[in-house]
């Protein structure tokens, strides 16, 4: 039948036409740049001028001779752990409280909590660099005022506190997003589900751990994946606060590959770092998603 033979042909054209723009964007915005990145990662290009192919030398050097790479990766893992096990539970708890207080107060508090997330990263970085400043910063002035002089240190340049100070800035800035996700998720939990649990004699803790959290597993998974990805590409707040210092103690992959490419003029090496960053990001995302599948969930 003519209509049956022409239909699929037409459909394929239509499908191709509809898919093509998306595929083109994907190819030109992601696949081609990644291809270039892989190509340049195999060279000793300085970013300009002549270059030669060095095979996998850059990768070998990164993996076997570059402690800064491993330090950067370690710092990323620390940040991921802090966001998952500290920022997320706190954000969830605050969201839970906000979902049970009056709508007006909840709205005001949500706005307040979200302000850091809405601020420019430059402003956030400069704000905290000033707060942490050992000479003129308000934090040390407060500590001295309440008699805790011994705790007044150079927060961002002291090797013992620098990483935690930087992670604090990142967590503070990102808290609003986590809160927003959890609050939105909590608003979707049917009231009758909660009431049924209560009628069955569940305490509020049991209601949350046995009913609400399993119900929100998809939201939690999404937030965790976002945390992992944003930790991997963390750059601006580090660059603007410590620049990776003191030494390389607060170095993160995003800053390190930028510094290698555009400060040290080791564009090839920087590209190798970026390729490894993509590989680690994809691997971590897959691992996290698989791990989260093991959690109990309510799929409705």
């Amino acid at each position, binding site marked *: 039948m003519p209509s049956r033979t022409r239909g699929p042909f037409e459909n394929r054209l239509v499908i191709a036409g509809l898919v093509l723009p998306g595929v083109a964007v994907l190819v030109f915005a992601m696949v081609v740049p990644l291809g270039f990145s892989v190509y340049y990662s195999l060279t000793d290009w*300085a*970013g*300009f*001028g*002549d270059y030669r192919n060095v095979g996998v030398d850059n990768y070998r050097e990164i993996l076997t001779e570059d402690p*800064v790479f491993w330090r950067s990766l370690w710092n990323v893992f620390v940040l991921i752990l802090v966001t998952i096990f500290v920022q997320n539970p706190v954000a969830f708890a605050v969201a839970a409280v906000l979902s049970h207080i009056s709508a007006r107060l909840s709205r005001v508090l949500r706005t307040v909590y979200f302000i850091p997330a809405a601020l420019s990263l430059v402003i956030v970085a400069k704000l905290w*660099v000033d707060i*942490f*400043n*050992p*000479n*003129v910063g308000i934090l040390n002035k407060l500590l001295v005022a309440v008699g805790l002089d011994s705790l007044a240190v*150079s927060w*961002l*340049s002291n*090797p013992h506190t*620098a990483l935690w100070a930087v992670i604090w800035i990142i967590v503070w800035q990102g808290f609003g997003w986590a809160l927003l996700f959890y609050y939105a998720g909590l608003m979707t939990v049917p009231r009758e589900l909660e009431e049924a649990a209560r009628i069955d004699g569940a305490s509020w803790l049991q209601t949350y751990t046995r009913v609400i959290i399993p119900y929100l597993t998809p939201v939690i998974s999404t937030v965790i994946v976002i945390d992992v990805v944003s930790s991997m590409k963390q750059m601006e707040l580090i660059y603007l*606060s*410590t*620049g990776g*210092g*003191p*030494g*390389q*103690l607060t170095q993160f992959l995003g800053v390190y590959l930028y*510094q*290698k490419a*555009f*400060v*040290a*003029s*080791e*564009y090839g090496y920087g590209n190798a770092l970026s390729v490894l960053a993509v590989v680690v990001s994809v691997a971590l995302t897959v691992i996290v998603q698989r791990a989260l599948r093991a959690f109990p969930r309510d799929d409705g």
Partner: protein
Amino acid sequence: MKPTTFLVLAIALAVIPASRVAAQTKTTIKMGDNLPDRSNTWGAVVEQINAEFKAANPGVEIVTESYPDQPYQQKVKIYATAKQLPDVFKFWSFTSLLKPLVDGGFVEPLNRSEFDKLGYLTGALESNVYGGKLYGIPVSADLWVIYYNKKLFKDAGIDKPPGTIDELIALAPRLKAKGIVPMVTDGKDAWPLCVTFDQLAWRISGDATLPARALARKARFTDPVFVQAAQELVRMIKAGVFQDDLMVSDYGAARNLFGQGRAAMYLMGSWELGLGADKTFSDEFRANVDAFKFPVTAGGKGKIDDLFAWFGGNYVMSAASKTKALDMKYLQFYAKRFPGLAWEKQAALPAQKVDARPGDTQVAKTLLRIIADAKATSGTASLDLSTPRFKDDIENAMRGLASGLISPEEFTKQLDVAADKASRR
């Protein structure tokens, strides 16, 4: 209408708007520099030169992109990668910065004869010569000195600047007792500490050629003199000579602490001569800012008048510029106007000869005297005479050393490994 009349009218209509458009067309020179403040000192001088150049060349527009020092250097590298360098831009003559651009064919050689008779100090033009060709015009004479605030010294009961590192270290607790930060510098970017490391090595050994010889692998960075220089720098840091957040203080933060009267000393180059005329700071500060020679070390063979001096900052022309003739005209104009204007406004110590005037600021007089006193001069070898990678390696090693994460011995070992790598490339 006759065809000929129509043709004449059509041509007239086509030509008249075209000529009007031509009259309105402006030729634009794209420029870049590291002087974001365009209303004070050096930036204001450049703005005045640009205004005079535009007045003398109707139809010329100058568009300038400015960023602070280190971000600007990174921006130039990114622009070079993207093949979008400005037509004329400020840069640095060093092997670690200019040479890669020369090797890559990104900058245009200049006709040296156009600049030979413009009063450049000995060695100034030579600093910009690669392969026998001149690639940049030097703008400033750079000396490594310590600026100080005479009032803060007086407040702390200090009557004269220190002449030795021991005396400098002894000032720290006295200033701190008065709530004054003893000395500031840009630790985040690490290069001022690297310059100081070279300076200390010279003060200890009396031999300015050691870093260059170590880079050429005719000496080792693990030699005792470099270990001692690193130890001396660590001794200064541990004694609290620098600001507490040294390693996260950038150029602007350090400069502001000094300019706002919170720090008594500022370890920096003579390009900060404009501190004495910078209206963003108080009258009291400007009246009290002065400079002194980098101190000697106890038992060192170096003399106080061994002067660390070089010609770093320059202006270069992009090889891809579409306005090369105009760019060259601008550079000639700049070379003629800059020394007079910069000295008149006490904004910079030019790389060309200037005469002292009765109205010069105190800090300007002192810098001229430091030059006049110099018995020997040398530049910043470790930082500037190697490859970009070595520059990055020494800065990173310095961050580790200054943060107390690695020992002076480990620091010099890292430099030696980096110098080996650099010499193989």
